[in-house]
């Protein structure tokens, strides 16, 4: 937080005073000491790699996320971004440290924290609506009730007419929306998204950014969004966390106080992205060097 005090986006807000009173008011409670929705304390995670060396993927991650906050995590490939989400989702256990949700330690997967995987993991043997209601079905919600709720979420992502389609019949952007609806249907407190839009074309991604921002405002979910796209992070996040290359540590935090709704082309978004990218470049270079070394040794 301290490092972001000198960030140009914030300075701009203070200098030109262009923000409306409501916007200032909406930021104010966040500054009050509200109990965090999610807090990570000294999280480390290592993997046993092939040549018996322990690979440290994450080291000493401390993070506090406010309820309803949109946090983006950027970093070079191999910085443990995905691992971080798996740990919060409870699909993997940290080697050290604890993950707390509403002050209670996380010790396994729970529908209160839903992860949208990079490859989505939609179930091809189920129709669109059956995918969306899967979580409710597992929770024992009655058929009528879960149909009703799932339809609402499908409508929210503009897929109301496709409820009986199978996954392979949908385009990439539509699949992405099914995954979003499926994740929202269990009404999780925390939504974890792992480079969800990486495989989409630019237009579809723009559209989904708008929709995600709208849905986030309408549902008030806490979102942690992992991406390697700095511009995307600046466009979506309230805060952007920059991780270092192996082991992943928090290098810097950027608070993005730009007004919403934002657009990818906004000058301020671009400028912020540029600032983040300047910091990120070193880490990307380290990741490249490591790859190069790996190539040389494996040859």
């Amino acid at each position, binding site marked *: 937080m301290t490092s972001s005090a000198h960030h140009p986006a914030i300075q701009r807000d203070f200098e030109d005073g262009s923000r409306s009173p409501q916007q200032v008011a909406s930021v104010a409670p966040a500054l009050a000491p509200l109990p965090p929705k999610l807090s990570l304390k000294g999280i480390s995670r290592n993997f046993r790699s092939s040549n018996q060396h322990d690979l440290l993927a994450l080291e000493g991650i401390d993070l506090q996320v406010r309820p309803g906050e949109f946090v983006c995590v950027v970093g070079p490939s191999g910085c443990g971004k995905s691992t971080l989400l798996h740990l919060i989702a409870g699909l993997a256990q940290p080697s050290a440290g604890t993950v707390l949700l509403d002050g209670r330690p996380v010790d396994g*997967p729970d529908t209160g924290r839903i992860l949208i995987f990079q*490859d989505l*993991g939609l*179930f091809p*043997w*189920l129709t669109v609506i059956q995918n969306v209601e*899967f979580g409710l079905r597992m929770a024992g919600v009655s058929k009528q009730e879960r149909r009703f709720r799932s339809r609402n979420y499908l409508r929210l992502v503009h897929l109301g007419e496709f409820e009986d389609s199978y996954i*392979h*019949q949908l385009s990439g952007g539509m699949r992405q929306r099914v995954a979003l609806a499926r994740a929202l249907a269990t009404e999780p407190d925390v939504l974890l998204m792992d480079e969800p839009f990486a495989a989409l074309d630019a237009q579809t991604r723009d559209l989904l950014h708008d929709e995600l921002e709208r849905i986030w405002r309408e549902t008030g979910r806490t979102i942690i969004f992992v991406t390697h796209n700095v511009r995307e992070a600046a466009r979506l996040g309230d805060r952007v966390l920059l991780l270092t290359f192996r082991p992943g540590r928090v290098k810097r935090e950027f608070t993005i106080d730009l007004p919403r709704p934002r657009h990818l082309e906004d000058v301020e978004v671009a400028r912020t992205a540029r600032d983040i990218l300047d910091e990120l470049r070193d880490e990307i270079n380290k990741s490249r060097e490591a790859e190069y070394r790996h190539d040389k040794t494996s040859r």
Partner: protein
Amino acid sequence: MTKRAARQVLFYAVLLGLWILIAGLKIWPPYILPTPKGVWEALAAGFADHSFWIAIEVSMRRIAIGYGISVLLGVVLGLAIAGSKFLEDTLGGLLVSLQSLPSICWLPLAVLWFGLTEKAILFVVIMGSVLSVTIAMETGRQQMPRIYAMAGRNLGAHGLKLFVYVLLPASLPYLVSGLKQGWAFAWRSLISGEMIFVSLGLGQLLMLGRDLNDMSQVVAVMLLIIAIGYLVDGLLFRTLERRLQEKWGLSPAA
């Protein structure tokens, strides 16, 4: 498609024509080469006096029970082996080597264990088909993308629910060929088993035809066995494959 159908009709018509022609030459007596008419009459007579119906019912009941147990056992066993390195190294290897044993070889053992009972024949059917299902389930569980199980767990499925609603449907494209092969093996094991010890059923009807020197009945029962095998394949497995293709898109297991 119509061209294909026309070819098939033509092929079988020529085959039937040749049969009529050669049988009509009366080079061999009818107990060596029956006439199509004789086979047709044997079929009609068999259905008229209910002996074929009874045999079909008995055989179908046996295969339903035997194959059903095989599938259940195979799925559980396959999952267990896929989930445990120890079982994979031990039981997995044993099962593969057992596959080279023709299932009818289990009959003498089964008869000594269970006597000339239904249990013995069911045992042979199960031993014939359980290995195919087990091995298919094992590879299916191993090759299935890990993401399905993770997504399932994340959405609140665990234990039996995870198995029934995620692992089983996710492995079905890999499992279906094993189910099909298991069925074919089960059907063969059943008929051979029934031929060797007397106990109603289609296999026994076949042997009865031989004992009576009634070649028409032998061929009629053979046709029946082919027809049932073909029908089950078409109704059960091709429907299953078509459903899978509809849901998963083309070439699900790739």
